């Protein structure tokens, strides 16, 4: 109920009157950049994008002059662990019934650090130590008191999210039913999807006859959603053979999948392209760290792009820091990816990976008013994110002292945001602090 009340309040604050951002170079992603552009926003949506010189504004429009700045869509991070959420525990390798929804700390300081990095939509995932570790959550980085404030509700009323799966070495422990080999990993997953198919078919046969319906099974219910294409599998995978295994299983069970990390993706780019499967890749400053990532390279972006793969990117925060997400794309350009492709990988491609391309990822009329204002070239080290806007509301402003602290760090930047523990001072700050690598 609290969440609902706040949403109503937020809606009232969003632009009743239209607001125009004028003078900036607009990079809409969906089309060519527009110099001296205009971005018109009302009721949390984009109502016009174009050349400032050709649009006549009515007198009720509030004008914000951002001449000399760059405006681009709010970044979409297709794989993050901000909020310290979790999925399955160590009791079994397949736990699709667990929801990251039930575990996120919205007061994690990394939320505001993430906004300072220009990210407005984020897929928060459980870890990669399971074959199926649980349900992920697609969040809008609105101002938030509780997790409900961040959720994305789909047209059918369900909450937007994917299913996290993983293969390769992370789950190969051989304990508690976890696999000891790659073949066993695939066999366990196949068995589970076969069960899910049978469950789905039983449900279909029972129709309206409740007596014939199988008992509810939270794990299988989720996999039925996956089989129906309602929930996209967000699949951790590194080595070339593991990548091919994911493609094989996706073909057998006909589920929608996006490949994550894809360290060896440059070795099997034609196969990924032929399967029509998008990739979310990551820029790590050096290869290695684990056997499967020995051949990780900044060139993955270029090679996949040239093969015709839809290439998105992710931070995997805290593997990389959300404040350096623009940098990740720039490093792909360093190794030959096109600038357009790199900027798309942070925005529209990631939106596609999450199935949210109708709402976010580009600056187009009718889409959510999620955008960032940059001091310069998005791919330059010297550029800073000056403002981040979500659904027509400013959620980060670098000129604000507290926001600046989250953007660059310093004493206090590790404290949780105390939006409603105000009256207790910092008494709880350090107990609540979330750290560590997911």
């Amino acid at each position, binding site marked *: 109920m609290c969440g609902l009340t706040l949403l109503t309040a937020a809606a009232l604050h969003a632009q009743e009157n239209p607001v125009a951002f004028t003078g900036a170079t607009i990079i809409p992603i969906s089309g060519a950049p527009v110099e001296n552009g205009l971005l018109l926003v009302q009721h949390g949506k984009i109502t016009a994008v174009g050349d400032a010189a050709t649009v006549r504004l009515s007198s009720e429009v509030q004008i914000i002059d951002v001449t000399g700045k760059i405006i681009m869509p709010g970044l979409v991070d297709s794989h993050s662990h901000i909020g310290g959420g979790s999925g399955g525990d160590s009791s079994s390798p397949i736990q699709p019934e667990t929801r990251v929804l039930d575990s996120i700390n919205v007061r994690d300081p990394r939320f505001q650090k993430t906004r300072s990095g220009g990210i407005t939509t984020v897929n928060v995932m459980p870890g990669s130590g399971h074959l199926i570790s649980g349900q992920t959550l697609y969040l809008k980085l609105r101002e938030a008191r509780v997790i409900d404030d961040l959720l994305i509700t789909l047209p059918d009323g369900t909450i937007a999210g994917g299913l996290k799966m993983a293969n390769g070495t992370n789950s190969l422990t051989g304990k508690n039913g976890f696999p000891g080999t790659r073949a066993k990993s695939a066999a366990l997953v196949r068995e589970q999807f076969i069960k899910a198919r049978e469950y789905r078919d039983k449900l279909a046969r029972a129709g309206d006859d409740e007596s014939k319906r199988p008992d509810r099974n939270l794990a299988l219910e989720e996999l039925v959603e996956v089989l129906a294409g309602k929930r996209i599998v967000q699949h951790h995978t590194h080595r070339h053979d593991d990548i091919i295994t994911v493609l094989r299983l996706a073909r057998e069970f006909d589920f929608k999948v996006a490949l994550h990390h894809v360290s060896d993706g440059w070795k099997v780019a034609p196969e990924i392209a032929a399967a029509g499967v998008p990739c979310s890749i990551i820029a*790590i*400053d*050096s*290869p*290695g*760290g*684990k*056997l499967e*990532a*020995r051949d990780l*390279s*900044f*060139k993955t972006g*270029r090679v996949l792009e040239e093969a015709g793969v839809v290439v998105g990117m992710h931070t995997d925060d*805290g*593997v990389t*820091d959300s404040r*350096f997400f623009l*940098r990740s794309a*720039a*490093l792909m*350009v*360093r*190794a*030959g990816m096109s600038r357009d492709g790199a900027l798309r990988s942070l925005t529209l491609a990631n939106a596609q990976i999450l199935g949210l391309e109708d709402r976010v990822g580009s600056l187009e009329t009718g889409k959510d008013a999620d955008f960032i204002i940059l001091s310069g070239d998005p*791919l*330059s*080290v*010297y550029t*800073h994110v000056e403002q981040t806007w979500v659904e027509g509301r400013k959620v980060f402003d670098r000129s604000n002292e507290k926001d600046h602290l989250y953007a*660059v*760090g*310093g*004493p*206090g*930047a*590790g404290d949780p945001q105390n939006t409603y523990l105000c009256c207790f001072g910092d008494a709880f700050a350090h107990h609540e*602090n*979330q*750290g*560590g*690598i997911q």
Partner: protein
Amino acid sequence: MTLPHSLYRNLSLYLFSLLALAFLAAIATARSQEQTDSAPDHPAMPVAIHGDTVYTMDGAPIADGLVLIRDGKITFVGSAQDTVYTADHRVLRAKVVTPGLIDARATVGLSGILNQDQDQDMLEKSAAMQPELRAIDAYNPRDPLVAYVRSFGITTVNTGHAPGMLISGQTMVVKTHGRTSDEDVIQPAAMIAASLGSNGTTSEAGKTPGTRSKAVALLRAELIKAQAYVEKLQAEDESKRPARDLRLETLARALDGTQPLLITAHRQQDILSAIRIAREFNLAIILDGVSDAPLVLAEIKASGFPVILHPTMARSFGDQENLSMETAAKLKAAGIPFALQSGYENYVPKTRIVLFEAAIAAAHGLAFEDALACLTRDAAKLLGIADRTGSLTVGKDADLALYDGDPFEYTTHCTATVVDGTVYPGENYD
């Protein structure tokens, strides 16, 4: 350095170089035959490096600059205009030429690329204090990450034992050739790595030190033992001298300043503990990490100790939750000598690229040339190798990095790295 002195010095070096050139030209014809048979990266081959801008870090940047190299040493630095060199030189050109970069605190070569037990030699956990562990006995010059960091322009690293034990072992200063430790090392016993705070304590039940106070008590007790050891060694009666003790003999070098303690301390109380210990034992130490530095800038400045600052992109949690991308600029403004580091990660990236860390500092208030200085001249001074490297100066080692643009920009490339006159490839994304 005062300006007139610097001008005089540059001018005299320049004149000397011109004379040397005339001499070299005379012998060039005789040598050119054998030179053509040399491998392209043969260190004996003379190299001429043209830079649209050459940052010598020893005087002002030179537009249309030229650096000449012979037998692994720099023989000329100056304007390319009106400067001639013999035809036997291998010629390289770049938009930007800098001294080879120095990573002042790394674990590369010890913390191997695969992150498997067999290639991780940066932390021995059998005892809290093992200063006798030498980096040179563990360094793997052929770990792929050594060549990887070199491909970004890094020619020298101070590498060795990681933060994570109260005294984890020693560091060494090594060139990034990737041949053998013995060939590549330039300072085999550079520093002794100690850690305070959560890096120097353990949460394992029954293990010590489990608290900050205990860690400092143990460290002080060990230094007192080393003092006693040194004193006993002075005994006139040889039979009364103590048996050789590797551990104490290493700490004795910390006491006399020949191998300083490098103390990793992130929280402000740990930084102050490090300074307190140093004063008690009259040690010259190097402060490492110092995430909380902005809280105790005055104390660090007053101590006179140099700093090897945490990577600017290090993860901000635990003892490092307060770290800031602006700290490098604050150290500079306070006049505290500092260098940057790739540091240590137990996960990924298995090594950071110190160039990238400086870039973030340069984007957060540190002036371009100051950022370059903390990777070159200032790092060389801090490591005590300024007589050999850290600037493009005639007579110094021919360590250079070549870039096709602003070295700090994300989309710039290192096109070649020169170590002791040997030309290595830059970044490769084929």
